């Protein structure tokens, strides 16, 4: 494998010469390339394929590069797509427009292979950070696995958080506060909101019934424990916005707008925005999920309950943003619904990973001796 690691790249240009040159350069670098001669064709490719990188011309007759980028950003739900725009020198206004639509980089036409190669290397470095997000999600999932009946809770709440943040970003008061980076950070860190539960005793965490006042006080400590743990990491990397947000989410997602929440009884905008967003996402998921002590409420009933909590439990603007896209919450809930396969029992009935996964890096797994020993 070379540095490009056979990564799938979609190239888009209505000029066959540009496509031919791009395809040759990218294939030489070691990428797997698919070509589209229009924005519409590119969207078709994107629907049926899996591309980590898109290199697109800016000016195209039907869907231009900016619009293509915007639509791809809306469709990228399972992993980030690095988007490079190809543009002529005179298109500086269009470049700004393209970057604003979510493009990551641009290369002036006619491209130089050396420059393109360096830009692609930068893109792959950024994409590798996604591996960090996957690892964090795996750790959050591990912490969550001690809780008995959460199923796809983490998968759902991060989707809810993203939808809610995107909706809130359209409000004038939040336009400058919530950008694409904020939304991606919230998406990545929201699964860590309950990481402090690893320190809560099983007798309380897995109790099949309502908690006593004493037990509830212990349970409340998960916010502080999670916050402290993440704060320790944040202090060693003060520039890592990722850790800062993870810490705020863990610490503040049980605070309430009227000051009656925990652990600190913060009120109003004293509560970090990410915590206010997380509160709506977390409660909606709890309401619509079955627990040992309650049935799953319907979407409509859950929306009513959240509305009733506006101004007391929840930030009224977060509730307003939630109401604007409540149908999307319902769609996510339906898509990521828990079934028998997501219960804790089913999760631990999965077979362990095969040892061949590890040793195949070092030995020839097709050798007769190994085949015989695996019988």
């Amino acid at each position, binding site marked *: 494998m070379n540095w490009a690691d056979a990564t799938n790249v979609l190239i888009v240009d209505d000029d066959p*010469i540009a496509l031919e040159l791009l395809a040759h350069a990218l294939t030489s670098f070691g990428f797997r390339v698919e070509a589209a001669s229009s924005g519409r064709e590119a969207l078709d490719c994107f629907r049926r394929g899996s591309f980590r990188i898109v290199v697109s011309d800016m000016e195209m007759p039907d869907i231009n590069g900016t619009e293509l980028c915007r639509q791809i950003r809306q469709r990228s739900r399972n992993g980030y797509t690095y988007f490079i725009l190809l543009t002529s020198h005179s298109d500086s206004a269009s470049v700004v427009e393209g970057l604003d639509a979510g493009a990551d980089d641009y290369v002036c036409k006619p491209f130089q292979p050396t420059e393109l190669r360096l830009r692609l290397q930068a893109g792959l470095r950024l994409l590798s950070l996604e591996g960090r997000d996957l690892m964090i999600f795996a750790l959050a999932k591990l912490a969550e696995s001690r809780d008995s009946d959460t199923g796809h809770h983490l998968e759902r709440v991060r989707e809810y958080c993203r939808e809610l943040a995107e909706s809130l970003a359209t409000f004038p008061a939040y336009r400058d506060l919530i950008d694409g980076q904020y939304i991606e950070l919230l998406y990545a860190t929201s699964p860590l909101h309950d990481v402090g539960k690893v320190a809560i005793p099983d007798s309380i965490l897995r109790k099949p019934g309502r908690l006593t006042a004493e037990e509830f006080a212990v349970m409340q400590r998960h916010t502080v424990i999670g916050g402290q743990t993440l704060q320790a990491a944040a202090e060693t990397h003060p520039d890592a916005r990722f850790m800062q947000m993870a810490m705020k989410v863990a610490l503040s997602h049980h605070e309430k707008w009227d000051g009656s929440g925990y652990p600190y009884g913060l009120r109003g905008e004293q509560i970090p925005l990410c915590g206010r967003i997380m509160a709506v996402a977390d409660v909606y998921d709890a309401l619509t999920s079955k627990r040992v002590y309650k049935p799953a409420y319907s979407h409509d009933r859950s929306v009513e309950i959240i509305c009733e909590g506006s101004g007391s439990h929840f930030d009224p603007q977060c509730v307003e943003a939630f109401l604007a896209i409540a149908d999307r919450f319902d769609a996510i809930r339906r898509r990521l619904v828990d079934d028998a396969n997501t219960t804790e029992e089913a999760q631990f009935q999965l077979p362990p990973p095969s040892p061949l996964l590890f040793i195949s890096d070092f030995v020839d797994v097709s050798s007769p001796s190994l085949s015989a020993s695996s019988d």
Partner: protein
Amino acid sequence: LLRIGSVDAETATADPTRKTFTMADQTLDIDSLIARCMGNAQLAMRIMEIYANESVSDMQKLEQAVLAGDLRLASQVAHRIKGSAANVGAQTTSLAASQVEQFAIGGELDAILDQLQTLRSIQADVRSAWEHRAQRSAIEPPQVPSHS
């Protein structure tokens, strides 16, 4: 750097008040094309063949769009000519097409008609330059596989 051909000052309708392109630019820079082909001369040959076909077809589309008064389409086609010419190293063609694109965006029909004449002339120069280079066999034509 190998430079082939140059635009004759007499063939271009240079008008300083309109900021049309200068005539000192290169007509066809084969080396830059080969560099973009990462040294693959056969690919460069294939690219030039595509360019030869596309440029004729694009010029026809451009002229038809101008005659039909469809300046939006004219600007799109001119933009395409600009890009593909730049890719093959036909810098003067690219600049002339860029002028047509800008005139089309600005709705300046007379200026477009002037510039079209220039563009045609420059494209003829590009063709001659390419034929000259091919005759010198600096780039071997692609081998056609025999079907024995």
